[in-house]
């Protein structure tokens, strides 16, 4: 089995193509990882439902932008607004009661939310797959024998912009400061007059909006929009971990690193190696440096 590793090629254009494909994939991972990081950073919740949030975003994008045929910017605005409302719903409906519960109970409740979203999407949209979105420019150009799609560049730009915005938000705004304070020590923050409830609600809303952006972007590069696109949520785990679960910038670096590694494994070893290689990288990172490349280290007291 291990001897079947072959197929290594020295052809630079193939490797360049793999690199570019990996960066494109990595950009998508970065979008998803950013959602994980946002939630984990301020609420300490590992949101296993993020893939489903993203699927929700993609289907809503279908509804607003294709079926309703709204103007692009208006449609995106409505999409993000609806996602924001859903984020508030998730917090005030469910997650609010789970504050202070055990870690695994909260992980499981996000799995419950994931199951509900999947079932509801199946009921309202049906199991038939839809064509992918085609609202962003579809063309491509060539560099050194490798094709670069405009969509990938746009995704890349959007991710970088989002990371920058969130970075500025956390650093310079009052709400961002509150979020960081609550993440650090919820009781101390509450004693200082910060309302953790509101902060958590904003966090979930932000994560949902991010998932809306992610769904819109991923809807342009996925093969087709159907129920299988939720898997992106799980596949983005290595990216989030490699970058560090508490680091915004780490998500983008982790996304790109894992995307490139995965794409090279895909190209040189075969498709089946994609996930094992990515998760092995995650495994090694966890063992060597559990908080990822840029994650915050927590001290533990007995």
């Amino acid at each position: 089995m291990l001897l079947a590793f072959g197929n290594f090629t020295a052809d630079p254009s193939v490797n360049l193509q793999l690199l570019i494909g990996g960066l494109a994939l990595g950009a998508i991972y970065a979008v998803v990882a950013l959602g994980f990081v946002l939630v984990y950073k301020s609420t300490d919740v590992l949101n296993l439902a993020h893939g489903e949030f993203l699927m929700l975003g993609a289907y809503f994008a279908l509804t607003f932008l294709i079926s309703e045929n709204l103007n692009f910017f208006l449609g995106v605005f409505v999409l993000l607004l609806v996602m924001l409302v859903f984020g508030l719903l998730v917090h005030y409906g469910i997650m609010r009661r789970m504050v202070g519960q055990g870690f695994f109970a909260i992980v499981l409740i996000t799995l419950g939310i994931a199951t509900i979203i999947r079932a509801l999407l199946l009921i309202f949209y049906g199991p038939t797959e839809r064509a992918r979105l085609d609202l962003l420019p579809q063309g491509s150009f060539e560099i050194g024998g490798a094709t670069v799609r405009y969509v990938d560049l746009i995704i890349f730009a959007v991710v970088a912009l989002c990371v920058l915005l969130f970075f500025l938000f956390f650093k310079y705004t009052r709400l961002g400061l509150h979020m960081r304070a609550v993440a650090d020590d919820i009781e101390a923050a509450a004693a200082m007059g910060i309302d953790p409830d509101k902060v958590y609600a904003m966090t979930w809303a932000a994560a949902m909006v991010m998932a809306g952006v992610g769904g819109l972007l991923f809807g342009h590069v996925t093969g087709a929009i159907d129920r299988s696109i939720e898997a992106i949520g799980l596949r983005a785990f290595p990216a989030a971990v490699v970058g560090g679960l508490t680091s915004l910038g780490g998500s983008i670096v982790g996304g790109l690193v894992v995307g490139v590694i995965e794409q090279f494994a895909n190209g040189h070893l075969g498709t089946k190696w994609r996930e094992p290689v990515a998760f092995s990288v995650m495994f090694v990172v966890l063992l060597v440096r559990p908080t990822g490349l840029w994650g915050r280290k927590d001290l533990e007291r007995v």
Partner: protein
Amino acid sequence: MTATENPATQQASNTYRPSTLQRFLPFVIAAVVPFILGATTNDLNFWWKAAITVAILALVARLAWRWTPRGELTHREDMRLWRTPSDRSWAALTMFGLLVLPFILASDFTPPMDFPWATWFAVVNLVLIFAMGAAAFNLLVGYSGQISLAHVAFLALGSIVGGIVGVQWSGGNMWLALPAAALAGAVVGAISGLPALRLKHLYLLLATFGFHFVMMLVWREYLQEYFGFVGIRFKGVNSPRIASWLHWLPGIDPDENGEFIITGQFRWYWVLMPITVLSILFMVNVIRTREGRAFAAVRDRDVSASLLGINVARSKLMAFALSSAVVAMSGVLASFYIGSRGEDSFNVQTVLNYAIIIVVGGFSSIQGAIFGSAFFWFLPEWFKWAREELWFVRDIDFLSDYPSEIDLAIKGFLVVIILMFKPDGLAGMWRDFKSWLGRRLARNNP
């Protein structure tokens, strides 16, 4: 204080100690009567048998209740698995119920409103397999606090061992595959538990999830190497059978080829039920030992546990090895029972299903795993029946248009609602019910 006022002596005067015969008689009745009822096939009609069954259930429960040692107990008596009257009563009831159930389900009887009798039998067998796996999962995740999502990886490992030992080497010898899977599960489980020595909570969850994907790769490679896309067939020539030197046992009548193939729900029940019951009793007993208490200590605070002299590393690896061994065995059973395993037999949804089972049943309780898996398998069957037969549900088109989706949605809502309002799950509700019943009985005859 005089001797008569001394509470200790008063308690001693209340001490009641049944004879050994009395102590075991209810369980002997519970063990023997089902077979007598099952053997008398055509003499009595169904309702008579049902009435007799209920009467004996009541008798067994009452006797087990009454003949319980109480008052001042010896240490031995205090350490028994079934100690209180209610424990012994429920144990006797469960024993009787488990033994009589297959005869009831195999009997030729049409329940009112076409309740699907035959599918129930299949569901009961699945519940047995899943209860075993879920209890082991709960032992690791709930009781030992080692968060792991590598659960399905060990089911796959069970299928691989079942494929190698049970199919390729011996052509359907499940009895050889079971211990082999337990051994492989223990070894691989201990290896997969190595990250637990360094990682905790979230990071451990992610690491074990990585292990899941690696195992899935191994599974796919194994399938394609030896079986191709059709997957492993555990049916037909590969069906498990009872060895010929055991054919003298009562109730075993070989077919015309001189073989006794385990096929059909009735025969499978008698294979699955003892294995599940024994492995669950084994896990319940593990919890009561020093090793099991060490698991709980490590879960609550591993640093403090190490100060108490517990070898934390050993304890964590032991929890992983134990749980994985049982899960791998349930994987073998599931493979042979279901009959075929293919590329998509194991996926992330299976992990979620086990999570749903232990949440709904009740986190960190072995009982909960049983309740959870029963609920998980009976719920869809019940809904299917309700959609087809129940007059006020039958006419709602929405429900019959989206059967599986609504099942999925209900499972999701159940997980969310139970975690929000009743974190103890069904096992917690059961405990509440029992204590309510106890209070109620105490009020009626003080």
